[in-house]
């Protein structure tokens, strides 16, 4: 089924794009990550211009997270207060990201920076998650439950001034910590065309120490708003949001997200985290190969 994309200026197979959306939607439902870290590279691999891919993936992530947020909020799995602080930081981060994007594009280094960011971020977070999940699975096999010490937040967080009570997260910490976290993911969203969920979820668990029940829902809540801001930012600056592409991706991803949310309930969480870690590491590895092997396209062309 051929579909012409009016902004990307080329014809694609609509079914492939819908399937791609479904795959990333599934991830988003299961893990509470937006799936953008997969969508954007795959779209580029398929031949969509990078800017259009990043811009349209952002609106796809919005759609996938909306249905995820609904699913989780029905179960009381969203901390709106914490989410609000994260969103504020995220929107600030998007603005900073847009400036960086322009600067790096002018220098011609945006591709390299994006790839290096992918390798470093995905590689470190992926191995961290994998180590942790393996440890839990081992403990589980021995019939032990790990001490609840991981609920403690990072000592740096405790040293920040000003403290709020986040009831649903079960925390009494400075709002500056989630605000900064929001800024970092906002920058990543704009630069890498990702929702930032794969960074948010572990950071919420291990740095903020939020209770596991609200982590996925709250991360989706933040992702939803930050990707909305990103879509607007792209529509206004790069003009690269392709609505037809976004709708195709959405068709797949919103259904995928719903299926994923159900799947997540029936699988043990540490197994889920191990699976996510594996996917994240594979993407990081692929990106690292792309940087070190002689690329297929030594030359690239951009319009002035």
């Amino acid at each position, binding site marked *: 089924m*051929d*579909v*012409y994309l*009016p*902004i990307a*200026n*080329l*014809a694609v197979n609509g079914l492939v794009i819908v399937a791609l959306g479904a795959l990333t939607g599934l991830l988003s439902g299961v893990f509470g990550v937006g799936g953008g870290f997969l969508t954007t590279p795959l779209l580029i691999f398929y*031949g969509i211009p990078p800017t259009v891919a990043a811009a349209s993936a952002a*609106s*796809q992530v*919005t*759609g*996938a*997270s*909306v*249905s*995820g947020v*609904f*699913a989780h909020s*029905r179960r009381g799995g969203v901390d709106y207060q914490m989410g609000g602080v994260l969103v504020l930081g995220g929107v600030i981060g998007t603005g900073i990201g847009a400036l960086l994007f322009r600067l790096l594009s002018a220098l*011609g*280094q945006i*591709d*390299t920076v994006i790839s*290096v960011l992918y390798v470093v971020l995905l590689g470190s977070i992926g191995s961290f998650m994998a180590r942790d999940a393996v440890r839990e699975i081992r403990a589980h096999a021995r019939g032990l439950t790990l001490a609840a010490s991981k609920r403690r937040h990072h000592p740096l967080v405790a040293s920040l001034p000003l403290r709020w009570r986040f009831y649903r997260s079960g925390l009494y910490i400075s709002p500056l910590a989630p605000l900064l976290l929001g800024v970092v993911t906002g920058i990543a969203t704009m630069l890498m065309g990702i929702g930032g969920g794969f960074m948010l979820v572990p950071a919420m668990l291990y740095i903020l120490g939020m209770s596991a029940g609200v982590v996925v829902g709250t991360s989706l809540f933040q992702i939803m708003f930050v990707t*909305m801001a990103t*879509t*607007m930012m*792209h*529509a*206004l600056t790069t*003009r690269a*949001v392709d*609505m*037809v592409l*976004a*709708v195709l991706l*959405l*068709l797949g991803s*919103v*259904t995928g*997200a*719903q299926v994923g949310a159900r799947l997540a309930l029936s699988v043990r969480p540490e197994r889920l985290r191990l699976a996510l870690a594996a996917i994240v590491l594979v993407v990081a590895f692929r990106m690292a190969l792309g*940087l*070190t*092997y*002689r*690329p297929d*396209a*030594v*030359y*690239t*062309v*951009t*319009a*002035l």
Partner: protein
Amino acid sequence: MKRLFALLCLVFLGAARDPILVPEVSQHKVEVRQGFTGTELLLFGAILDPQGTRAGRDYDIVVVLKGPTQSITVREKQKHAGIWINAASAQFRSAPSFYAVASSRPLNQIVDARTSAIYELGLPFIQLSPIGTIDPDRQVRFAAGLAGVMSEGSLYQEDPHGVTVSEQVLYQARIALPSSVQTGSYTAETFAISKGRVVASAVARVEVQKQGFERFVADFARHQAFLYGLVAVALSIAMGWIAGRLFAYV
């Protein structure tokens, strides 16, 4: 009328040996609509001698279809500290967004490099107008890089046997436009070449335009960016929400 005038001029000036080309294109307007996956243009025409009879001689025919030009940056990756990064770049003011050349024989057998450069016949001879000073070796390298990238997407094509001439009078060439062509004004130039000399040339035009929904979306995104962004966001929320509702009862 113009053609008739030119014909009369030729007759009276006595340039009786040089032929006249009457070019035609199968489609003067290419409409980019939903489901557009590219199209094939048939460029054809007749080679006549000034009296209006068939030329009766073997000419080499070269057909060049060129899209609107654009200013571009070509970047070259080099390996530094173990990773491939964009290390060098060159800017060109007039790179065609589409360039296809078809000929009845390989170009290097028909014309020499000088003639090729004058008439922009062949990928190495496209006038790119570099911005700033650039040494010739470097320009050749980047031009070749550009041609490589564009050929990959079928946006630059070279077909050394793409033109067929029948009965010394009718020629035709097929050129495929991929779906990723830019919209704008395209020119189809035909050259008749004899003994390495261009003896006649003629131009036909093709307009590539977005139509219907595709045009609407492209204009909307360009002229009302804020509203377009809002619609995109609203659309994604609505779709996510509807899916959430539907699945809530499943």
